[in-house]
């Protein structure tokens, strides 16, 4: 999967939970889930669960703590898919 494909998948996953439309339109690797997209903590958990389903992976507490922006989400998904 290319980075572009991965970003597109992540963008589809986060879309139901975002509060800032403008930041979502301009979503890039540097987009922060909380600061930019204004996602609340409960919806951040929903995103984690949706990522697990989409990629058929299992995420742990330490992954959750690291998953603050698009870049770190991509890194975690890539690591899990490789492992």
């Amino acid at each position, binding site marked *: 999967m290319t980075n572009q494909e991965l970003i597109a998948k992540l963008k589809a996953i986060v879309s139901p939970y975002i509060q800032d439309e403008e930041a979502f339109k301009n979503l890039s690797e540097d987009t922060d889930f909380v600061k930019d997209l204004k996602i*609340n*903590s*409960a*919806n951040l*958990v*929903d995103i*984690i*669960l949706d990522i697990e389903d989409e990629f058929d992976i299992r995420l742990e*507490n330490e992954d*959750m703590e690291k998953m603050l922006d698009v870049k770190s989400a991509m890194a975690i998904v890539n690591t899990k898919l490789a492992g």
Partner: protein
Amino acid sequence: MTVSKIITLLPYQKPFLFVDGINTISEEGITGHYTFQKNETFYEGHFKNNPITPGVILTECMAQIGLVCLGIYLLKDELNSENLPKIALTAHQMDFYLPVFPEEKVTVISEKKVFRFNKLKCKVKMFNEKGELVAKGLISGMMKA
């Protein structure tokens, strides 16, 4: 963890405590009850000369029993009287079917859907004393020790 211990760990008190007792509890769900007293503060205003329990209060009762009591049970090893649970309601979707009047006893049945990364989401139903469905819906909250 005993039922009375769970109730003492609830972060509420009168006039905003809507749990009288717990009938059954497990890792998967909870059944509890509450009887609305004649003199609950909100009956003065909801409605004028026509006291009916507000839907938000029914939702609160369902959240206190269905989510918070269950959450305390799930976090049991990490909680004590010095370390009360930190909680926040994050979402609910509720449908209401029947009114609840003063002095009615309601039973709340909650089934755990998800408890991961401190988010607890439950399918919750409320029944009146005749066993009729009063309300049902989904409630989510964040819950940690």
